[in-house]
């Protein structure tokens, strides 16, 4: 008798039910009727996802299973439902409104693009190709993320940063502009025709060389208008450069033969030298990252532990924040393109809101990495999603609505040095294993 009582009590404990109503903003084939269901309270995301999938399957027999993520009060569920409610202080008595979204995770991993040396820079801002910079001093264009069509040669040192310049005026496919920064203290601007079809990778040389930095260039970023480039360097300064191949400006000086070892100087084209239009001085140490999100503002992160905001027109510092760690990477995006994310010499990815007055405390902190963070990028369209890469060889996808990473990509065997979004559904990353990995199928 007693035993029976016990058993029944235990079973009620195990099968505590919570009434849940699933809602969604997804299009109609993925929509569920808005009736409330009772689900066991010990379910976590997996179980909920399974329930939703089964319900959808019942409605449509041809439906393919796919993972879902669940939002309650703007927070992703990452633990058993019961625990989640307890932690958030939500009553289990009421009907729980639960929004389901497609789970963000890479579904496909494409073949890595092999390089000769460490891949130190990657840019995926153009949907048709990927630009990579390498430690062998060459930048490469990978068309469609698979074939190397162009090799940009000329740098005497490792390329640290590469950026595609999206010129508004010139929309044509044939003339694309690219900027690279290198440890040989120079920036180079390249112009190439992405449309032309070639059997072998075409070797092209820069049309403009920008040499004013006295130490290695660490990071470059192009203006949204596409006619300016800014660069941060180890000489603690940020310099702004004109992109235009302006023969008219008159500083077209044919460059002397460079270096002893530049044997390939036979086919000497006319290469221009440019001078910086302005210099932003203020950082005390290496400027490790620059971002130019709006026409008039530049953000920069430095090893002197500060993030600064600069006004392009006046060249003055408008905002400045000290975070206590040497910073390696910086990006601006998120909610109304105002949140600043930065990572540096510790495993914590921090997000600040510069609009919040009087506080230097980060609004979000993500600390799942185990080593330095080398790259962080906001998703171009989503307010919530971002990406980080670290020396521990992992890439992590983050959602601001939960403290746990959405997905961890550990295809790299060594340090990840650079990462970016590509075509808004792929993550591209280059690392010290000389490979460029592309993980696609991320539905955001």
């Amino acid at each position, binding site marked *: 008798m007693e035993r029976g009582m016990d058993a029944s009590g235990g079973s009620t404990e195990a099968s505590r039910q919570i009434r849940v109503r699933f809602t969604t903003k997804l299009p109609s084939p993925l929509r569920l009727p808005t009736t409330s269901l009772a689900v066991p309270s010990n379910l976590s995301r997996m179980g909920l996802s399974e329930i939703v999938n089964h319900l959808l399957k019942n409605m449509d027999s041809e439906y393919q299973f796919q993972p879902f993520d669940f939002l309650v009060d703007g927070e992703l569920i990452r633990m058993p439902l019961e625990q989640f409610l307890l932690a958030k202080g939500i009553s289990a008595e009421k009907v729980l409104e639960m929004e389901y979204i497609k789970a963000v995770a890479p579904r496909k991993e494409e073949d890595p693009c092999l390089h000769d040396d*460490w891949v*130190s820079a990657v840019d995926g801002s153009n949907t048709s190709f990927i630009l990579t910079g390498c*430690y062998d001093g060459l930048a490469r264009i990978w068309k469609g993320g698979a074939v190397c069509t162009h090799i940009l040669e000329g740098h005497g040192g*490792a390329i640290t940063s590469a950026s595609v310049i999206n010129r508004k005026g010139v929309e044509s496919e044939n003339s694309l502009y690219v900027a690279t920064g290198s440890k040989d*203290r120079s920036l180079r601007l390249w112009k190439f025709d992405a449309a032309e079809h070639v059997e072998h990778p075409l070797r092209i040389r820069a049309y403009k060389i920008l040499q004013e930095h*006295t*130490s*290695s260039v660490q990071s470059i970023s192009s203006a949204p208008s596409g006619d300016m480039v800014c660069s941060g360097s*180890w000489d603690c300064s940020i310099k702004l450069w004109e992109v235009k191949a302006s023969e008219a400006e008159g500083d077209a000086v044919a460059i002397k033969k460079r270096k002893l070892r530049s044997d390939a100087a036979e086919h000497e084209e006319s290469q221009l030298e440019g001078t910086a239009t302005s210099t932003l001085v203020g950082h005390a*140490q*290496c400027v*490790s990252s620059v971002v130019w999100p709006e026409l008039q503002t530049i953000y920069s992160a430095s*090893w*002197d532990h500060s993030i600064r905001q600069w006004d392009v027109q006046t060249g003055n510092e408008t905002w400045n924040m000290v975070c*206590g*760690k*040497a910073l*390696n990477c910086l990006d601006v995006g998120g909610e109304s393109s105002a949140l600043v994310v930065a990572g540096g*010499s*510790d*495993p914590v990815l921090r997000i600040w809101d510069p609009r919040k007055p009087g506080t230097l405390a980060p609004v979000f902190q993500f600390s799942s990495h185990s*080593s*330095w963070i080398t790259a962080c990028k906001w998703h171009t369209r989503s307010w919530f999603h971002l990406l980080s890469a670290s*020396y521990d060889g992992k890439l992590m996808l983050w959602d601001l609505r939960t403290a746990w990473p959405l997905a961890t990509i550990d295809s790299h065997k060594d*340090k990840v*040095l650079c990462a970016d979004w590509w075509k808004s559904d792929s993550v591209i990353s280059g690392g*010290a294993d000389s490979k460029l990995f592309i993980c696609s199928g991320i539905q955001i």
Partner: protein
Amino acid sequence: MPATMAKSRAAFKKKADHVEQEGPEEPSENGFVRESGDQEEESERSDVVGSSEDEGSSGEGEIDGEDDEEIHQSAEESDSSEDEVAPRNTIGEVPLEWYKDEEHIGYDITGKKIRKQARKDKIDSFLAGVDDSKNWRKIYDEYNDEEVELTKEEIRIIRRLLKGRTPHAEVDPYAPYVDWFDWEDKGHPLSNAPEPKRRFIPSKWEQKKVVQYVRAIRKGLIKFDKPKEEPRFYLLWGDDSSVAENKRHGLSYIPAPKPKLAGHEESYNPSIEYIPTQEEINSYQLMYEEDRPKFIPRRYESLRNVPAYENALKEGFDRCLDLYLCPRTRKKRINIDPESLKPKLPSKKDLKPYPLRCYLEYRGHSGPVNSISIEVSGQWIASGSTDGTVRLWEVETGRCLRVWDVGEAVQHLAWNPLPELPILAVSAGHKVHLLNTGLGDAEEKMRIKELLHVEEVLTDDAGNSVSAVSWIKHEKHDGITLEHLKTVSTVEWHRKGDYFTTIMPSGDSRAVSIHQLSKKHTANPIKKLRAPAVSAVFHPTRPFFFVSTKKNVRVYDLSKNKLIKKLEPGLREVSSIAIHPGGDNVIVGSKEGKMCWFDMDLSSQPYKRLPAHPKDMTNVAFHRSYPLFASCSDDCTAYVFHGMVYSDLNQNPLIVPLEILRGHTSSNGRGVLDCKFHPRQPWLFTAGADSVIKLYCH
């Protein structure tokens, strides 16, 4: 007459008693208000008043008791007065009954008995009384045993007294009032004279006296006892014994501790849970004697089986010993928390940032990394290893940029401190190489090339002048090689980047040499060193030069070329030395794992000795800007300390151990061989015998 008066009074007392019983008591007062004053006088006066009122009344004896007594008193007083003749009898005032059955009534002044007179019988005396007309005036004086005949005068006085009048008739109680305070212009009862001025003016004399006292008080000549403060609260139900104890001096009473009440476990047959198991009993043996339980419960079937108390004899003996040998002093035990004896150190949180965790490793060497050096900007790090290579790394990514094969095990290397001269000085075997790293821009590279160009003539010159060092062009890499006679252990640059020093430990008088890069010149300024030199460092700001030998550290002034100070660490064997960027503090590491902090302003003895590592200390390092210093040792650890040097000369440096950094593995009994701080970040690089360089970040 007075004598007779006295007698008569005494006799009269008797008579008055009789009289009193006869007459009714009459109030002698007639509204006369009695005032306090002399009683006798009063009574007399009242007598007088009474007599004056009841004049002529026939009653003989209306005397109230009170008056009688007063008379009696006055009689007594008169006895003692001088003018009275002492009575014949000398027995004093004793009850006469005592002599009732005697033949004498007392003793005269000479001590002879006074015999009683033969008593007449009543009839005779009566008859005699009838015959004698004066009989009524006779009174028998019992005291003197005689008959006294009162005179008419005396009778009269008695009568007056009985009536309450004055004894003598000539006294007039109602004499007219003489107003003595009577004068002519009397308007007020007393003087009408105005108040004299002195009554209003404070007295000068008093003032002087007060000032005198005040001064005395101020000077402390007069001291007041502080009013004793009564304890406001006291234990109403307090233990008296404790009060007594407090007040007692000398040997104090120590109340015996109250014995614990016996519990169940002390029963002869306690429940089973009180009985300790054998394991527990065994565990008691491991405890200290003091901590062991005094009583171990045991079970007995019945009270009959309980044995005699086994310790009875011993305890009795102990008790006797206690009483006999008891120290008559109270044993004072000091209870000090050992934690409180630790010095107060600031918390580690407040001392952030400091290196904490290893995030980056620089792998590539195939042998123990003997030495590392970080470029001034903090972008590059160079390392030298026993595998005969020098490697150049990028700090940020851990990428090896360049490898020079030197051919011999690299002992030590150092970057030129000038950012525009990225030259590496590498000591390997007998040679010191100056390597051009090629990191600068084109202009700088040219300058360095010029600087590192050695003409062959110069080497010949050096050879001729029997110098210990010859400058030769390096064949493989563009640079200079300095050939020494003996093995070079250390290379250090001067802050201006032109001079550098090398140490040959077995070089005797040429152990320390200073080289000038621009002139390609070598000098041996220091000839005498008692012990083999270990290391040499330039002062960061002044023209001083520190040479550490195995025993001590010598400080030379290079501009005057003389020894100015000798630091005595008192260590067995000095292994390394580092100078605070301020220049006034030096740390010295030793082979025995101890570190000494010298404050140059204080003394030549160490300000602090830090016993840190269990094994050989291989290197010590200061941070250039953060208040940090570190030591590394063959026990595979590096210790990080907070070493704050204050600009205030009165404040001693604050040294706080912060962190022990582990991670290196031991190889051939050697651990961490070198440690250096990043010049700008609070990061520490360590080079290990496991051929790995690690970067510890905050």
